[in-house]
């Protein structure tokens, strides 16, 4: 049975991610150790909380360089919600904090007359990503990436304007929504990433 490594820098939501991976037949293990993250075949970077707290946690555990390297090399990485945002350059949520800078974008606050946070199920148009079908995904976000970043395949969601739902490059898939909470559609997305990345993992 294959192991998937979850970067566990915060309390929140890790249990849901682990449970979803178990339902896909994987063994999740959690770590904050940079060597383990570097060596892992497949890594999940979940995230709930503020951009600053997320980056401080990564920095304090020495995880920033290994995650950056992995994402830039296109090695298997599934980033979820804040995890996606941390891959960007910066965020309006936490001025002065640098993100991993792998995605050439700055994270913006959801604006206009919208309810914030965006809590609930919204449609995802899969665009040119490897996500198999359009569907409904569960969101819990106050910030977003507004424009599809250059060099990434991109799925989108309408919330006021069109926002980035997920982006993909190599074996890196970063979702603004929570696939682990998106019912059967989300489970299929996770299973798809697992099966695609299995072939890129040296056995």
């Amino acid at each position, binding site marked *: 049975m294959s192991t998937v490594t979850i970067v566990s820098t915060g309390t929140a939501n890790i*249990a849901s991610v682990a449970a979803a991976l178990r339902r896909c037949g994987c063994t999740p293990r959690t770590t904050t150790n940079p060597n383990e993250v570097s060596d892992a075949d497949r890594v999940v970077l979940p995230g709930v909380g503020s951009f600053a707290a997320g980056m401080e946690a990564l920095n304090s555990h020495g995880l920033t360089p290994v995650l950056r390297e992995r994402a830039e090399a296109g090695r298997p990485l599934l980033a979820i919600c804040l995890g996606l945002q941390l891959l960007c350059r910066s965020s309006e949520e936490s001025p002065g904090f640098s993100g991993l800078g792998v995605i050439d974008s700055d994270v913006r606050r959801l604006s206009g007359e919208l309810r914030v946070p965006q*809590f*609930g199920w*919204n449609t995802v148009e899969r665009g040119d990503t490897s996500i198999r079908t359009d569907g409904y995904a569960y969101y819990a976000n106050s910030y977003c990436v507004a424009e599809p970043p250059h060099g990434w395949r991109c799925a989108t969601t309408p919330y006021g304007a069109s926002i980035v739902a997920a982006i993909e490059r190599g074996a890196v898939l970063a979702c603004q929504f929570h696939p682990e909470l998106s019912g059967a559609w989300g489970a299929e997305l996770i299973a798809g990433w697992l099966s695609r990345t299995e072939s890129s993992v040296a056995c």
Partner: protein
Amino acid sequence: MLTRRIIPCLDVRDGRVVKGVRFAGLRDAGDPVEQAERYEREGADEIVILDVSATPEGRETAAVTVESVRSVLSIPLTVGGGVRSFADAERLLSAGADKVGVNSAAVARPELLSELASRVGTQCVVIAIDAARRNAASGWEVVTHSGTTRTGVDAIEWAAQAEQRGAGEILLTSWDRDGTGEGYDTDLLHTMSAATRLPIVASGGASGPSHMLEAFEAGAHAVLAASIFHDGVMTVGSVKAELARNGTEVRL
């Protein structure tokens, strides 16, 4: 487009689902894992578990229940009841809750909301407000401790303060309507919706899809219901189909 959410609520005590009107006359209503699974299958958008245990042993059981439900559930899970500290919230989140609901303890000590939001994020913090119409004046006041305490605190002002302090969602229960089947308190929803930008989950009083439509029109983003689903009078799926026929965006 963001859809309206239908959220079945499980009142859980000592590892079993219970039901009763206003927490009186509780009787056994089944296994929480089986019910949560069934609701997800029927199309529920989220599950709320409300721990109504009265004892510390019961609270321990609640975390075990959350863990068991989490292992089968692939939609969001909110857990409330008896959350008084960061440690309480952390226990439930570690067990598999995605959001925690805080109620009486936040009224007694509003800083609790900021403490939780700064450590686990706004997205994980639900302020549960039980609101009752004032007896001698207009408006609503917050009631706590399962309705036994009328606090005198204005429910609308309290919601605004909770938003400021870092709550990410409001679970708004009408104490006057809860368990009556007379419909959600739409005046309360209208007033609350105008006073906050947070999403509002309406609770208390539903006996069918027409009540849910009224709640959405009054500003609710999600509706919570317990007895109509437990009794098998209708399924989540049939409710959603009816809402869709009436032009409400739901996830089908």
